[in-house]
Structure formats: C-alpha cells, structure tokens
C-alpha cells in the first residue's frame, strides 16, 4: 500500500492551488485515489495559501495533510510554518529566490530551486509553481511527458489553450534543473 501526502504552500497568486490541482489530476488520470483540499480560512484572506493533496492506492481517509511526505514552500512564512510538520525522511522543495534561509531539519531531503528567478529569466510569467512541480515529479520518478500532456489538457480549459506550451516548458525546466 502506497500513499503520499503533499502540502503546497505560499502566497496567494503563486499558483499554489493550481499546482496541487495539477498533481491531483495527474494522479486521477493514472487511476490512483486522490484528494485535494485548499485552505480557505482566515489565513487565506491574509495572503497565504496552502493545499493538501493525497495520492494513494487505497481509498483516501482524512483529506487533511498534517504530516506531509512532501512539502513545497514557496515563501518564508510557509517554510517557517510547515518545516517541523514534514514526516521524517520526507522531502522539502523550496523556492530559493524568495526563501533565503536554509532548511534546519537534518532528517529530510531538501531541494532548493530558484523557481521565481527561473520563471522570470525564461519569460514564463508566474509559472514558478510549475517549475517546482516539474522538479518534484522528476525527484519522485513520476515525470512522464505523455501523462503530463494529458493532464495539462484536462486542467487548462480550452479557452486558455495558449497556456499549454508555457506550462509544459515550465515543468520541463524544473525537471532538468540540477
């Protein structure tokens, strides 16, 4: 039985909810059990956003992620808040353009990706989120161009089809980042 719990967090507008939705959709397309739960409370109104995603081979119990196996922290308040919650042996992805400090935990694996800078340098607007997701998928050994293309086709509405390419580029850029 395999289950992975993800927590995405950052400022509102960084595409936190979308990044989680993409991952949940990808899981669903691969016939896995999935759940996606956004924060919608007072903290959201204060400008920070987070969402819980669970991918599982069994039906998902609680959709609330309190001990993430994978944490994506796209700003400092998120890292400060959730670093201690990560499960031992877990993985933390940090947007190192916006988070200057290092992760203190020694029992987790950390990847520092200057995603916001990479997005700006490559004319990818605000797709730092997808750059990190690209890296995340490659680290988890789940980067699969076909599945990614199908999933993007589902989560991006036909009206916004012009965004397919940039999203694919952002994911690729993240996956290739060493």
């Amino acid at each position, binding site marked *: 039985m395999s289950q992975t719990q993800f927590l995405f967090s950052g400022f509102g507008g960084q595409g936190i909810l979308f990044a989680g*939705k993409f991952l*949940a*959709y990808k899981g*669903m397309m691969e016939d896995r*059990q*999935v*759940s*996606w*739960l*956004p924060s*919608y*409370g*007072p903290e959201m109104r204060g400008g920070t956003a987070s969402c819980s995603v669970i991918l599982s081979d069994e039906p*998902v*119990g*609680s*959709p*609330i992620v*309190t001990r993430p196996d994978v944490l994506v922290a796209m700003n400092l308040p998120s890292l400060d808040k959730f670093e201690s919650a990560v499960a031992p042996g877990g993985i933390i992805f940090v947007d190192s353009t916006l988070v200057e400090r290092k992760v203190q935990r020694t029992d987790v694996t950390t990847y520092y990706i200057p995603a916001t800078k990479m997005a700006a340098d490559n004319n990818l607007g605000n797709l730092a989120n997808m750059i990190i997701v690209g890296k995340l998928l490659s680290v988890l050994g789940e980067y699969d161009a076909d599945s990614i293309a199908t999933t993007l086709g589902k989560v991006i509405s036909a009206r916004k089809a012009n965004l397919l390419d940039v999203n694919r580029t952002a994911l690729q850029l993240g996956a290739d980042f060493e």
Partner: protein
Amino acid sequence: MAEKVLMKGNEAIAEAAICAGCRHYFGYPITPQTEIAAYMAKKMPKIGGCFLQAESEVAAINMVYGVSATGKRVMTSSSSPGISLKAEGLSYMAGADLPALVVNVQRGGPGLGGIQPSQSDYFQATRGGGHGDYRMIVLAPASVQEMASLTVKGFDLADKYRMTAMILADGTMGQMMEPVSLDFPEPEKVEKPWATNGTDMAREHNIVNSLFLQPDALERTNFERYERYAYIEQHEAMWEEYRMEDAEICVTAFGIASRVAKNAINEARKQGIKVGMIRPITLWPFPVAPFKAAADKVKSFISVELSMGQMIEDIKLATECKKPVYLCNRAGGIIPSPDEVLAAIVKANENGGDL
C-alpha cells in the same frame, strides 16, 4: 462507467442537482458554500433554468416555497447562519408538505461564528430548526461522490415523501476536490396532483398552504405527517459499517469526522485494537438498527464530532443507553486529528472500554 472528473464538493452538488432535473436555484452567498451558487449562475441560464440571487436568505427560501408549490424541483443552499434565517421557511414548507432540497455546508457557530468546517448544526437539522412538529430528511455525505449521489437521492426522497431533504455537509466537504462520476439515470417523472400548476379548467384548483385555523384539521395534518415520518424511520435509514465484524469499541462519526476516524481506526487495528465504526449516512432517520445490534457486542461507543457532542443523544437513544458513549471532539472550525481520535480509542481500550 462515465469518465470521472475532479470537482469540488460544492460543484458536485450543483451539477448533481441539475442531473436530477432541478432547474430552479435561489440563494444568497455565504462562505463556505458559495461555489454552489456560482456554478448555478454559470449553468442555469444555458439550460433554460433559473438562477436567482435573492436579496436575502429569507427571500430565497420563500422563492423555493413558491416554485415547489408548482411541482418543479427546486433547491437552495447556504451555510449555518444562513440556514437559521431560512428556518421560518423550512417550517412553512413542512406545514404545506412541499418537497425541496436544502443544502447546509456548515461552518463554526453559534452566531456568525467563523468560516471553518463544523458539524454543530446537527440539532438544528435533525430536530427541525423551525417551529412546530416536523422533520426533515437529513443526508450526511462523506465524500465528493456522496455529495453528488446524495443530492440526487435527496430530490427523490423529497418528492416521494413531500418534505424537505437536507444535505448536511461541512466546509471541508464543500471545498475539497475528489474524483466524481456524474453518471446518473434520467430522473423519473413524479406525479404531483397537488401542485398549483394550472387547472386547465378541468379540475378543482389546488391550494398549498400551512394555515389551518381549525384545531382538529391541524391536528389531522400533524398525525398524518407523523405516520409518514414513522414509515421513513422504518425504511429510509442509511449507514456504512466499517471493520465492525469483531469490534469491541464502536466509533461513530459522519461526514469529515468519519474520514478522520477511518485513519485512526486503521492505525488502532495495526496496534491490535478491535475497533470499528458505524457511519450514519442519514442523520434523520437515524440508523437505529446497527446501533441496537452493536450495543450488545461492543464495550463502548466513541462519538467523533466537530461539535460539542450533539449526536450523542441519538446514539444513546438508539442503544437504549446500554453502553457508555464518549465524546472525542473539536469545535469552532477545528477538525480533530487522526492522532486525537486514536488517543481516544487507545484510552478506551486500555480502560476496558472506558475513556
């Protein structure tokens, strides 16, 4: 099987309502259920339906009364404080025997409370909320799929018994996304000979009304209604049993609390503790039969709730107080963690069933 889509619970309710033939929605925005209204606003005009944002919750529920009287399927949705405002209309609809679907995506209370998930409208939903002798069928979904399927079921039950069916969800259920299949059969045509939809000069006119000034006439309507309620109690209770085969401790939870409890039960089972769960799917009628049976087998019950323990009364009534019922709860918009529920289970197990 139709393709599954990833949807928020609120959106699943709205889409399922449309599948069930509902073409009239009246509401007023309130977190955390606003996606229902937003979805209806987008969809209804395209399919010849009616979406109307009323000037208040009170207005919305009275619009529901009006459309229901014409025999059409109709719904409204709100969250806790908004449902309190609708209570008068709910009582009037009960008094006029009008079917409707009402959705409550609960948030913390009392008063304006907060906007985070809660289950503290249990009494309000299962005991009526408005004045007078009446009941509502109360359905408690625990997944996005159930948000959809119980919506369809709710419309069917409402029409069948000429009463309000309520979906009692919470903020988590409304906001979370899960894969959902919306492959529902075409709704069956329900005959409504009582509807005020025009006589064509071929029949006596129908009257839909909740005013009965003659006490004997009013008493008769109450007795007739309670015969129907008694039948519903016998025939419409729904529940899920989870790992109850050899359980010595019985957790009881509905909605989001049951999801958290499942994690805790699986963890406790790994530690060798014989624990299971009865999850009521209908809160009214409360599923008495499985509790009655469990009361002879288990040492104790633990009610896991996002309230101050409002469901405990129903568990005690169903089990005729044969075994102790303990409470494991959080309130005010906080959801108990699986660890908190596990701790309650472990403690009950160590103390021979006592918390």
